[in-house]
């Protein structure tokens, strides 16, 4: 048979006879809701807009790994494409950034940090912290800023925050090369301790990888909350600035806690929180790997904490994000 089906209870003879200016009245379906659902079940149809079970979601996501990778590298590439110098900016940008911080905090405001090479201290702090900060702000926009894409194509939404952070990691790699270069060169300046390349440097990729996992978790959490409450995005820059000072990016914050006028016990608590919170842990790891400073001895505890924070944030972030899966794109 080749006549089209219709769900109208009676063949619609609307507009005929009646007022042609008015559309026909809304149709009354010939089947009841229960009948339609039974029909869907009979032919094995799959309900849409239902959050897939966690296991299935993870499988679906791992199948899209190529998509995550291509989206990440393409975004990273597109960022510098509109300039005459093109991809050279991937290196120039971090150099200029480091120059500003070194000039202001290293040369003009010569504050004692209890370290022998404050340029290396600042450059490592700023570069690694920018990775965290960019992951938070990028993750926040990864769903809310892509409504058009969400309403056009169907794929596991976790692809978006993941590719955002992966894209930042791709731009971080040239920046890390610059960072290592500046760290080494700073030793030749008078008044700065020489820094040597040691076997410890081989652990740098491990520290960056832990940060990447941690940042992805953060991006998941931000993506979910900003998608439902866009206002959070306005508060983020301020929160991130507080976190920056609380993580010892430019000044070792723990030494300042010592000088606070509060009871000893609360000093220990505040100091402990500031020292072992994730961002401070990752900065410690990178600094302990690259610099030979007495205040950053290699520490097994810090590596264990770095791993624990990464896993914890990634798992919690992923579950938080997955629980909102069926809602992304509605608002």
């Amino acid at each position, binding site marked *: 048979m080749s006549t089209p089906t219709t769900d109208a209870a009676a063949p619609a003879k*609307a507009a005929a006879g009646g007022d042609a200016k008015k559309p026909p009245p809304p149709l009354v*379906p010939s089947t009841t809701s229960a009948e339609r659902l039974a029909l*869907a079940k009979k032919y094995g149809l799959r*309900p849409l807009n239902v959050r897939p079970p966690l296991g299935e979601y993870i499988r679906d996501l791992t199948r899209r790994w190529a998509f995550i990778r291509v989206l990440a590298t393409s975004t990273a590439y597109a960022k510098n494409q509109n300039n005459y110098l093109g991809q050279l900016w991937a290196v120039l940008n971090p150099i200029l950034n480091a120059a500003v911080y070194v000039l202001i905090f290293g040369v003009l405001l010569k504050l004692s940090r209890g370290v022998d090479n404050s340029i290396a201290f600042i450059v490592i702090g700023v570069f690694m912290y920018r990775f965290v900060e960019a992951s938070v702000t990028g993750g926040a926009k990864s769903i809310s800023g892509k409504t058009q894409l969400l309403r056009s194509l169907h794929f596991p939404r976790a692809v978006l925050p993941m590719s955002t952070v992966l894209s930042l990691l791709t731009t971080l790699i040239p920046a890390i090369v610059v960072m290592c270069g500046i760290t080494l060169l700073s030793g030749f300046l008078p008044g700065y301790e020489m820094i040597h390349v040691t076997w410890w440097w081989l652990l740098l990729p491990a520290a960056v990888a832990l940060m990447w996992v941690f940042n992805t978790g953060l991006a998941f959490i931000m993506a979910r909350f900003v998608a439902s409450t866009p206002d959070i995005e306005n508060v983020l820059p301020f929160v991130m600035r507080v976190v920056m000072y609380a993580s010892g990016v430019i000044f070792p914050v723990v030494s300042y806690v010592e000088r606070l006028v509060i009871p000893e016990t609360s000093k220990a608590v505040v100091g402990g929180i500031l020292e072992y919170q994730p961002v401070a842990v990752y900065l410690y790891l990178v600094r302990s790997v690259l610099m030979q400073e007495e205040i950053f001895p290699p520490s097994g505890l810090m590596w264990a904490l770095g791993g624990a924070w990464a896993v914890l944030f990634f798992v919690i972030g992923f579950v938080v994000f997955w629980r909102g899966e069926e*809602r992304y794109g509605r608002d």
Partner: protein
Amino acid sequence: MTEADEHMDFDLEVEPEDEGEEALETELGTPCLVVDDLHVVYRVIGGRAKKEAEKQGAEIREVKVKVPFYKRLLQAGRRHVGAVSEVHAVRGVSFTVRHGESVGIVGVNGSGKSTMLRAIAGLMPPKSGSVHVSGEPSLLGVNAALMPMLTGERNIMIGGLALGLTPKQVEERFDEVVEFAGIGDFVYLPMKTYSSGMGARLRFAISSAASPDILMIDEALATGDAAFKERSKSRIEEVRSNAGTVFLVSHSISTIEAMCTRVLWMHQGQLVMDGPVHEVADAYKKFVRAQRPGMGPARRRALQRKRAAEEAARKKAEADAQKKADAEAKKAAEAHA
């Protein structure tokens, strides 16, 4: 006639090359899509959307949720701070579609066609009701956002991967996609340099490359030229002959008549007619034509102003003539005296 009706934007395009074309009749299979009492409500943050959208005939209401006291305090300046409206774009739609059907969706602007298409493609979560499908639906919209900064080549890869193909599959189909889109060497240039027609063609080529079970097309054919339309029509027939289903939203009623076997007519978020293509298309055309001579409020007001001005001018002329006559009569009387 309601206020909303008067504001409707009528659009009854007829493409000459579609005249007389008929959609291919195919064998109908088992149901492949069941839509049950679908309601789609989307949130609009920022209050100003309200009046504009209401004009379009959408039903909008302020969100009334029970809020604790401290929140109410925060929301004291509600209209400007934290104004949230909801647009009830699709209001209870139910239908069943079978394998091999080609369904057109018609309706005036703002009747909820595109929103419904997104909801049945699984891209916009419904407020209530459900959609059941077999296979993976794929929506093709004119503003399907690929990355304008990147080359067509890169976009083909991204689009293909997003649709669930593997990188190898995308590479295999690359030449076919480029040829179908008819963009030639432009594929190696950034997509922002493309004309709107080229962009739309490439997007159509990408979304149909994955040979979807349910292909949904939202106005995308409007930007293509005649040759492209011919190619996309044969692609649509191909999907249907593979037991796939096609949905088509278009303002061009002739395109719908040429490509569809069944038409759904939506009005203000509800289904008002559902049946074979000619029956519904004829009724819809009649409805739209009936609206045409009727004019919008702006034009009506302009006409009223014109009439009022004419009336005033006429009255003034009359009054002047009267005065003149009076004056002459007076003069005559004086002379007489």
